[in-house]
């Protein structure tokens, strides 16, 4: 059974709920009411402070078969997830489903917990490193479920992911559970992904390495949603939580792509005083802001807001008065993490506010322009950011499909080839973002406009930009690198790719 983007979707998927095929970006309508956590009572003399994680696991009554969640604001510096799972494994609890907002290289130790039956299900935005390789090779019996950031928030609010216990690492916290993204030992800025878990989980354990006096306010996660507080020595490796500052690229290819992309934006109908934008953290994507800045200064334009993963270049533009508001679900570097507690119009939002398609309107809906990257893009403009050209899982869905569907102008920036790997291909290995939500592809060898967007083509043609068809780009890539052999897969599904609305866009098969 094929969905509307030509992807073969199995009728039934082991361990997955009823299959809904993807049909178009806003086709699937929400039904029912939001999920909600149980009512609780904490009396005036009760203490929430526990001595260690094991005690917290006992207190919340974690049992075989339950679902637990984590956030990925500590990225590849995160110690919490491994710490909690190691403890659960030692305690003999099995058959746990984990629902972290994402996974990174540091979570490789999960492999042994999967082999031992401690973990049997994974919901995540992405997976990397050896864990991703093993999952691609069929490590797990049940396929993992890949969701976008907005899609995860939606699934939690809809009760499709029911979190029994959320274990949330927080850089500072008081004994009553008021938590912030900045502490003495570690700092991650926005706690946007964790806030959703805190609101909807049946039980919430805040884990901190900086226990501060009550009240630790204003708090990102507040006392009314936290059951227990645990102090540990160290939440993570702060060098890997947020790198010092995102640096501008010097790579001439990336700069060329960024310059083209900025000229697409500047010539579009969306570039005006008070516009809004989001850029990813990739080299070209970040450099776009530099070119935009120049033109904004020239025309005396200010952006009303910048959304997303906030980075140093955006903070600089804010401080120079070029951006009025920073709307931050995740702070990408230390500069952004500092800024959120220092700059008055730098706001923390949660993942539902950011990009959930089934609430009463997310911030992404108000976006004019988004600049995104891609591992692969095909002739229908479908984008893959999850599997490598070898078919192995190696990336994350992130906010890619959310912002592409929501923004008025969505631009993909990517080199035509990476080494011997073509970026523009006949058919992407896995679809994360449907082509009908992508407007323009900018490469170092030319710019292709989605034929659906004749208006954009009209506004950027005759401006000295190298506009070509996406087929032409695909052929030039092939001329340079040759024709790659198709990847061979087994029949078994190792991952289900959910679109942000909960329909299935694609599945990832076990690698041969």
């Amino acid at each position: 059974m094929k969905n509307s983007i030509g992807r073969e979707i199995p009728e039934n998927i082991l361990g997955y709920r009823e299959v809904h095929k993807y049909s178009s970006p806003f086709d699937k309508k929400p039904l029912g009411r939001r999920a909600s956590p149980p009512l609780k009572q904490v009396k005036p003399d009760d203490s929430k402070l526990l001595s260690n994680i094991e005690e917290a696991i006992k207190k919340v009554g974690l049992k075989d078969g339950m679902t637990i969640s984590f956030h990925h604001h500590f990225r590849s510096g995160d110690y919490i997830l491994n710490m909690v799972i190691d403890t659960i494994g030692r305690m003999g609890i099995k058959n746990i489903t984990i629902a972290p907002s994402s996974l990174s290289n540091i979570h490789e130790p999960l492999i042994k917990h999967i082999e031992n039956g401690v973990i049997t299900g994974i919901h995540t935005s992405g997976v990397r490193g050896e864990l991703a390789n093993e999952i691609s090779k069929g490590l797990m019996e049940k396929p993992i479920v890949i969701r976008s950031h907005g899609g995860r928030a939606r699934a939690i609010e809809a009760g499709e992911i029911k979190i029994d216990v959320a274990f949330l690492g927080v850089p500072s916290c008081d004994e009553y559970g008021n938590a912030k993204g900045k502490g003495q030992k570690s700092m991650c800025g926005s706690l946007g992904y964790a806030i959703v878990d805190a609101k909807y989980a049946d039980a919430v354990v805040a884990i901190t390495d900086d226990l501060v006096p009550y009240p630790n306010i204003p708090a990102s996660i507040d006392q009314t949603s936290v059951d227990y507080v645990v102090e540990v020595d160290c939440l993570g490796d702060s060098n890997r939580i947020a790198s010092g500052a995102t640096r501008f690229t010097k790579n001439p290819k990336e700069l060329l792509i960024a310059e083209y992309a900025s000229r697409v934006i500047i010539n579009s109908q969306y570039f005006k005083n008070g516009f809004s934008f989001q850029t990813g953290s990739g080299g070209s994507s970040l450099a776009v802001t530099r070119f935009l800045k120049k033109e904004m200064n020239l025309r005396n334009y200010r952006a009303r807001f910048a959304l997303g993963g906030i980075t140093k270049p955006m903070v600089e533009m804010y401080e120079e008065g070029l951006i009025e508001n920073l709307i931050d679900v995740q702070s990408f570097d230390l500069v952004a993490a500092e800024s959120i507690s220092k700059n008055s119009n730098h706001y923390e939002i949660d993942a539902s506010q950011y990009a959930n398609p089934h609430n009463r309107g997310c911030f992404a809906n108000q976006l004019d322009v988004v600049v995104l990257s891609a591992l692969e893009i095909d002739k229908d403009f479908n984008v893959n950011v999850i599997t490598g050209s070898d078919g192995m899982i190696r990336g994350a869905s992130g906010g890619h499909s959310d912002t592409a569907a929501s923004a008025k102008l969505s631009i993909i920036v990517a080199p035509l080839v990476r080494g011997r790997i073509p970026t523009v291909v006949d058919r992407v290995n896995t679809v994360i973002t449907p082509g009908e939500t992508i407007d323009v592809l900018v490469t170092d060898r030319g710019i292709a406009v989605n034929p659906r967007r004749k208006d954009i083509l009209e506004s950027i043609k005759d401006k000295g930009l190298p506009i070509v068809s996406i087929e032409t780009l695909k052929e030039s890539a092939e001329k340079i690198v040759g024709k790659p052999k198709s990847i061979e897969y087994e029949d078994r599904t190792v991952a289900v790719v959910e679109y942000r609305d909960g329909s299935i866009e694609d599945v990832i098969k076990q690698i041969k």
Partner: protein
Amino acid sequence: MKIVKTGMAGTMESSDINITIEKNQESGIKIYLTSSVEKQFGDQIRKVILETLEQMKVNDVVVRAVDRGALDCTIRARVQSAAMRGAMSENQIDWGLF
């Protein structure tokens, strides 16, 4: 072209290929390839190495190739250099071969 000693060319940088050519005690050309793009381009890389050696009339060698996503033109150039070094003829290049 007769290989008299081990010839090497290329680096381990990305987009390059490192080629080592040495005499094969048995007859024929044996290729040991490791590549970051084995699944997509492994066969193509072997084909280019073999064709380049045949063109240079190099026989009875063992080729060890460590590829980091080199393009065909790079692979050809590295194989040619390695073969000429192995034949100790890198200063007397027979351009007619190419």
